[in-house]
C-alpha cells in the first residue's frame, strides 16, 4: 500500500504493528495524558492518518539530558515510534551531517516546510553581551532562535532551561540566560519543563499536536494533561501526609516505613509534573519511591529555591528572606539546628548517631 508510505499507517504496516498493538500504546499514552478512553481511540485513529511531520530541534545552553531522555525510551514504544516517525530535519547532536551540510539541512527544512514545521528547543538562550556566550556555526543562539521561529507552526520548549531558563539562569546568571518564551511572543509555545522531562510527556505532546493540535495549556504554557496535578496530588505516600506521618530523617523508622518526605524537603506539593504516575526508567520508579523527596526540577528557578532539604513549611521561595522570615516567625525547628549543625555533627560522630537532614540543611 504505497499510498500510506508517508503516513504513520504505512509505518505501522512496514513494522508489522497491528492496530490492536497501536491502540494499546495509545491507551497507555492516553491514560497518562488524562484523555478519556474514547479520546485515546480517536487519537489512535487520527495518528495513523498523520503525514510525516518536519521537526527542527535546536539545542542551546543545555546538557543534552533532554535528548538523552527522549532517545532512551526503550523500543518498541509509542514514544520511539512517534520519535522515529517524525522527520527530524535538524538536531545537531543526533544528525549524521556536520558543519555546513548540517546548517544547510536546517535551512532546507525551513524553506521546504515554511510555516508548517515544528520547532523544538532545548536549552536556554544567553542574551547578555549580544548573546556571544553560546553560538552554533558562528550564529548566536538568539539569532538562530529568532530566525527559525519566524516560520515555525508551533514551538515546543523542552526541559527547564528552554522553558524557564533552568540551570544556566541560576544566580548570578552570568550569561543572561532566558527562556524561549522570553524572546518569542508571536508563536504558540508549549512548555515541557523538567530536568529532564519524562520521555512520554515529550512524545505525548507531539502526538497531541499531530492529532488534536495544541493541547490545553496552563498559565505557564504547560500542557494541563501532564502538569495539571502536583507530584503530591498523585503520590502514593500522600495518605501518610494526610495522617501526619512523616519521616524525620533519612534513616529513621518513618523513612523505613515509607512515610511522607515532606519534612525532609520534598517539593512534591508545589511541583507540577507527572513523575508520580508515569515514573522513570521505563516506569520503574520515581525519586520519592527511592526514598528521596522531589526537588521540583520542573518548576521555575528550582535551583535557587532555597535548598532541596529544607521543608516547604519553613519557606523556600526566597533564600535571602528565608532566614529572617523564619527567625521572625520563630519557626526555629529547621533553623536552630542549622546553627547547631557543627556541634550536632561532631556529636553524631562521637555517638554514631545518624546525621539528620537538618544537619545537611545547615551545611548548605
Amino acid at each position, binding site marked *: 500500500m504505497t499510498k500510506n508510505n508517508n503516513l504513520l*499507517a504505512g509505518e505501522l504496516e512496514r513494522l508489522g504493528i497491528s492496530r490492536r498493538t497501536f*491502540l*494499546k500504546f495509545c491507551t497507555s499514552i492516553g*491514560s*497518562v495524558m488524562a484523555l*478519556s478512553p474514547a479520546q485515546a481511540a480517536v487519537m489512535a485513529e487520527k495518528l495513523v492518518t498523520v503525514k510525516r511531520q518536519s521537526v527542527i530541534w535546536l539545542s542551546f545552553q543545555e546538557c543534552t539530558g533532554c535528548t538523552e531522555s527522549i532517545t532512551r525510551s526503550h523500543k518498541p514504544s509509542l514514544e520511539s515510534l512517534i520519535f522515529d516517525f517524525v522527520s527530524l530535519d535538524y538536531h545537531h547532536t543526533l544528525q549524521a551531517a556536520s558543519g555546513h551540510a548540517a546548517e544547510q539541512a536546517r535551512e532546507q527544512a525551513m524553506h521546504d516546510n515554511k510555516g508548517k514545521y515544528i520547532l523544538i528547543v532545548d536549552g536556554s538562550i544567553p542574551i547578555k553581551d549580544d548573546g556571544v556566550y553560546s553560538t552554533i556555526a558562528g550564529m548566536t543562539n538568539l539569532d538562530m532562535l529568532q530566525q527559525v521561529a519566524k516560520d515555525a507552526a508551533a514551538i515546543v520548549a523542552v526541559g527547564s532551561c528552554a522553558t524557564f531558563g533552568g540551570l544556566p539562569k541560576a544566580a548570578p546568571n552570568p550569561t543572561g540566560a532566558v527562556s524561549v518564551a522570553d524572546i518569542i511572543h508571536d508563536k504558540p509555545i508549549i512548555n515541557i519543563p523538567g530536568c529532564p522531562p519524562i520521555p512520554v510527556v515529550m512524545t505525548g505532546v507531539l502526538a497531541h499536536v499531530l492529532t488534536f493540535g495544541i493541547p490545553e495549556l496552563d498559565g505557564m504554557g504547560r500542557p494541563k494533561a501532564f502538569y495539571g496535578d502536583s507530584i503530591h496530588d498523585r503520590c*502514593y505516600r500522600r495518605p501518610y501526609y494526610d495522617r501526619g506521618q512523616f519521616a524525620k530523617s533519612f534513616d529513621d523508622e518513618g523513612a523505613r516505613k515509607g512515610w511522607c518526605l515532606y519534612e525532609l524537603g520534598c517539593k512534591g506539593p508545589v511541583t507540577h509534573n507527572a513523575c508520580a*504516575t508515569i515514573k522513570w526508567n*521505563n516506569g520503574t520508579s520515581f525519586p520519592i519511591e527511592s526514598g528521596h523527596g522531589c526537588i521540583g526540577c520542573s518548576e521555575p528557578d528550582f535551583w535557587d529555591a532555597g535548598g532541596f532539604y529544607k521543608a516547604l513549611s519553613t519557606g523556600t521561595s526566597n533564600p535571602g528572606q528565608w532566614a529572617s522570615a523564619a527567625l521572625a516567625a520563630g519557626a526555629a525547628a529547621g533553623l536552630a539546628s542549622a546553627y547547631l549543625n557543627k556541634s550536632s555533627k561532631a556529636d553524631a560522630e562521637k555517638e554514631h548517631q545518624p546525621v539528620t537532614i537538618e544537619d545537611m540543611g545547615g551545611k548548605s
Partner: protein
Amino acid sequence: MKPIDLPVEVAQPSTGMAQAVLHELAGHLQQLIEAAKTEVIDITSLPMSSSDKQQLETLLGKGEVDITLNTIGESRIFETAYSGIWWIRHYTAEHKLISELIEICAVPQIIKTHPADMQQALARLQSLTNTEQ
C-alpha cells in the same frame, strides 16, 4: 540489564483506596446496565499503594474469562468475579507494566479486531491463495 536486587523493602500498608474504588465501580456498572455507558478507571494514575491494588484485586476476584493478547508486549485481560468489570494489564516487550485499567463494559475495546487489520489480513490471504494456484 537487571537492577541489583537489594534486600530493602518499603512497606506499603493499605490506605483504604480499594474501598473507594469499589464504590466507583458500582456506580459505573449501574450506568452500564441502565444506559449502556462504558467506563474505564485508570489504576495507574490513582494514588494507590501496592497493597491497595492487591486488596482490590482480591476483592474483585477472577471471573470466567481470561485473555492474553500477544501484541508487542503481552496484555493480560480477565473478567473479574463481577460480570462486566474487566481488569486489564498492558505490558511492554520487556514485560514492564505500562498501564493498568479497569474497564466496565461487555467486551473490552481492545479485543475487537480493527478494520485495517482485517483489510490487511484479507490482502495476505488473497496473495496466499494466488500463489497456490
